[in-house]
């Protein structure tokens, strides 16, 4: 291929990307990718919250009364050695009572009635994988010197099920949206190609090879995809920062992603997706109109 021809393709693609019809596709691409990006941000934040919540799931292992410090250390070592355990923290009986008092709130008065601290010493165990909590808890409960374990059985299971559900639903919805966006963007570009079917026909009659016709469309598609993705990326970035500020003002306890990296990564992904979609649409859909 001659350099002049390559240059011609780029110039043609750029020129026709500036046309009316193409600007409409541009808007569609930008809007679609924006919607997709917004969804991705929401899912990313849900995932973030879910991970934080999972990280908070702990097993409390109560120890038998009257153990020597060496015995406690031995148990700690054994727990630590259990498969799936991430972190072990000692909670003395006094610390445990203070926490229980906090949990009981208004009812804390009943603890005063009890003369002596009824709670045993304990270990707080954080697991590597929240899904395996029950399994790890069972193993720990079998260690000699461990009185029993508590990991908020019912609640943990519910939380995990909900998390899993949110994950599955998010993935399904995201897949649906990606499909819808690809479909819509593809359709839009197809329409612009149809509106130029006569042009393509004439080009073929004048002796243009298929690739000679396709390249400018490909360039155009990529330009449109890139610019559309850039627009949606900018809007998303600005919109997300606004939203974060709003949320942290209204409900500071909700953990949102404030680090710029994941959002930037999303924007880059959108850019790539835009260019790819544009290229594929420009390259593929034109093909149908080349049989003249």
């Amino acid at each position, binding site marked *: *291929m*001659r350099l*002049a*021809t390559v240059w*011609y393709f780029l110039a043609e693609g750029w020129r*026709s990307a500036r*046309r009316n019809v193409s600007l409409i596709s541009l808007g569609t691409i930008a809007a679609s990718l924006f919607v997709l990006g917004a969804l991705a941000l929401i899912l990313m934040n849900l995932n973030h919250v879910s991970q934080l919540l999972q990280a908070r799931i702990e097993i409390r292992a109560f120890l038998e009364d009257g153990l020597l410090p060496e015995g406690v250390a031995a148990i700690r070592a054994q727990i630590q050695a259990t498969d799936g355990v991430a972190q072990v923290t000692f909670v003395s009986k006094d610390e445990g009572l203070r926490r229980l008092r906090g949990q009981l709130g208004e009812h804390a008065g009943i603890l005063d009635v009890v003369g002596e601290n009824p709670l045993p010493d304990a270990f707080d165990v954080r697991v590597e994988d929240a899904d395996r909590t029950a399994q790890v808890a069972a193993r720990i409960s079998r260690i000699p010197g461990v009185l029993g374990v508590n990991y908020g059985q019912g609640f943990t299971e519910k939380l995990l099920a909900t998390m899993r559900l949110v994950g599955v639903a998010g993935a399904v919805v995201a897949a649906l949206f990606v499909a819808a966006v690809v479909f819509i963007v593809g359709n839009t570009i197809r329409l612009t190609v149809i509106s130029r079917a006569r*042009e393509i026909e*004439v*080009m*073929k*009659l*004048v*002796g*243009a*090879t*298929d690739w*000679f016709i396709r390249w400018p469309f490909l360039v155009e598609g990529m330009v449109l995809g890139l610019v559309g993705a850039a627009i949606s990326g900018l809007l998303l970035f600005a919109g997300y920062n606004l939203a974060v500020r709003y949320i942290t003002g209204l409900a500071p306890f909700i953990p949102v992603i404030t680090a710029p990296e994941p959002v930037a990564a999303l924007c880059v992904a959108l850019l790539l997706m835009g260019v790819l979609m544009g290229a594929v649409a420009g390259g593929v859909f034109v093909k149908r109109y080349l049989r*003249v």
Partner: protein
Amino acid sequence: MPRAIEVYQVNSIFQELREVMMLIRLYSVSKVYPNGAVGLLNVDTYIRQGEFVFLVGPSGAGKTTFMNLLTRQVLPTQGQVIVDGRNVVRMRPSEVPYLRRAVRMIFQDYKLLPNKTAYENVAFALRVTEANPRQVRTRVMESLELVGLACKARAYPGELSGGEQQRVSIARAIVGDPTILLADEPTGNLDLDTSWGIMELLLRINKRGTTVIMATHNRSIVNGMMRRVIELDGGKIVRDDERGAYRREAGHGMVLPG
């Protein structure tokens, strides 16, 4: 008689040579459109390298169909079409662009690209061949000059009169120095002076070696040139005169009505 055999052999060699010399050859070609309309019916003919042929006949006779077969815009429903040694019917799709660069057509309905200027339309026909970009400009302007439209180079087809669009289409067809030039009613929207100008141009191109086939309804041009005339009617060749007129007889039945 050894001599008779020799004559026979010589004749056969001549026959073969003539076949080879023939740039275009149609072997009992028929084209029936899907809706049943007859485009061509069992047409058997040849056209030699360097010939200038008029294609005449009433509206709907099959002139455009004949030309479209040569550039593979339509495929025959029967028969074979050989153009410049290549079988158009059996050709691979990837070869078609090269056929169309060798066989340029002036379309009856111009077929200009609406989003390109007159200049760009003509240049496009060169660009597809990846011609030297430095030559493109001179050759395109030369070609527009020849049809008298250099001043309209920057106008879009929508900004041109019917005759001007027709001339852009002519300029586009001749810019690449094609082997064969198919001119479908190239003077339909041109006045007499301009028409003769275009005829001079086509003759000059023909002299340079390009085979020209021209479909026309213009009586005075056909009669004035005295070239080969193929007359079609209802898809069949009804006449093929080496040096013919628009009509076999001179009387042209000009009845003034009213």
